[in-house]
């Protein structure tokens, strides 16, 4: 990965000025490179990683990981069906997997019933979906390389020669 993307992936709030000075580049160079990556889809978007358990919410959201076995279609493989699935706003992530099932969908709903309804009504009724297995998420420990529960701050001496 290029170094600018690497830095932004760790901290999207770094300014072009910061990055330029860290990498011995000019600010214009960094701005251009960022714009180019935004244009060509290398940088998809900027967002915050939220530990949702810390949000005060009206009601708990439910997240499920759904294993989907499918019948691939001639000439289109898995892609056509995948598109039909990921267009649903309830599906927050979708991956094609090796192993005992084919697609792994991450589905969010307001409650259990919501997700169950989505699976039984929308997902399993799609042509070429052979079976589904639904796992409900209980707790997130780490997401996108970030530990959601920070260990207590480490004590360092203020002075060490």
């Amino acid at each position: 990965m290029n170094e600018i993307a690497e830095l932004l992936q760790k901290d999207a709030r770094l300014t072009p000025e910061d990055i330029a000075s860290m990498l011995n580049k000019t600010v214009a160079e960094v701005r251009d490179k960022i714009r180019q990556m935004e244009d060509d889809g290398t940088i998809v978007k900027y967002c915050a990683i939220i530990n949702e358990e810390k949000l005060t919410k009206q009601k708990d959201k439910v997240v499920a990981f759904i294993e989907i076995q499918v019948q691939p279609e001639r000439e289109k493989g898995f892609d056509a069906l995948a598109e039909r699935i990921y267009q649903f706003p309830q599906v927050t992530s979708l991956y094609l997997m090796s192993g005992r099932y084919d697609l792994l969908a991450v589905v969010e709903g307001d409650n259990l019933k919501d997700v169950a309804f989505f699976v039984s009504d929308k997902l399993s009724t799609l042509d070429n979906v052979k079976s589904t297995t639904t796992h409900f998420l209980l707790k997130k420990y780490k997401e996108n390389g970030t530990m959601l529960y920070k260990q207590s701050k480490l004590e360092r001496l203020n002075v060490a020669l």
Partner: protein
Amino acid sequence: MSRFNNRIEQMPPSGIRKFFDLVLDAKDIISLGVGEPDFVTPWHVRERVFFSLEQGRTSYTSNWGLMELRRETAKYLKDRFAVSYDAEQIMITVGVSEAVDIALRTILNEGDEVILPEPTYVCYRPLAELAGAKAVAVSNPSFKITADDIEKAVTPRSRVIILSYPSNPTGYTIARAEIEKIAEIARKHDLWIISDEIYAELTYEKEHYSIAAAPGMKDRVILLNGFSKAFAMTGWRLGYIAASDDFLEQAVKIHQYAALCAPIMAQYAALESLQRGMGEMEEMKKSYWRRRNYMFEALNKIGMTVERPEGAFYIFPSIECSKLSSEEFALGLLEKQRVAVIPGNVFGLGGEGRVRICYAIDFELLKESVARMERFIKSL
């Protein structure tokens, strides 16, 4: 009749003890005074040590250290710095600190002189004095000591030259050509070299050149290195000496009686770092390099002028713009802006007029510290 050893008693306490106590007790400050990485030892290293403890590896090791670790260390030195030692020529020590003490006590006699380029890390002078020798400081306004500077200090009592590059506190290193000239002087005057290369791995634009790699030097160089800085392992206290057989034959006596061996847990941690830790080490190094770049530019912008450091994680800017002494600067900055830096005079000859800044801290805090230093300078 005193109750204490004369040499210890006569050794002055650090002149700015009061300042350090103030910093140590301070809460809610940004400290640029820490001489260690801001990374925790990588997980795979810590995890390997859990495993070694589960296996019950809690015994002494040989005085020399684990053979496997000595072998890996010899291989590492050859791969990274092109210096060849046999595994038998490596002695594992309790940090480089113990190694410095052992090296000095092994070669020094009462009244010998130690040629010490300053400003430098603070342990060499007192340890040389404890060994009965006299430290002779040499300095260069550019902080890059030359062979000429060193030769001018040579007397019939000179016994050893201490080199410590990349340098704490300056971050500078010495070019290969100059190192070779210094090697020539050591040969000409029959001097030892103690080369503390703890920051060797953290050399940014060029390759680190060890004086042990200079032709004909292996029998006079006592090469010291360790795991604290590059592998983020300060608290494990693990270093090593690579040197000639005859030197080690003497040196091991001190280590055997004073330390017995380095802790076995730390030795397993070091082994893991050498075997599987190079990738993470390179990542950490890259992150220091980025912050070095930032800091070099930022300090010059606010009038704390400095040449670009070449290694370690320190920068040693001039504070001339403040018209203050380094102690006044550090104290004022701490009191008015809650930022701690180390006054340059602590590091000996040539250090006055500068402060040492360690940039191995969180980037946001680093930026904030620069803003506060700028405010401090403007307020004067």
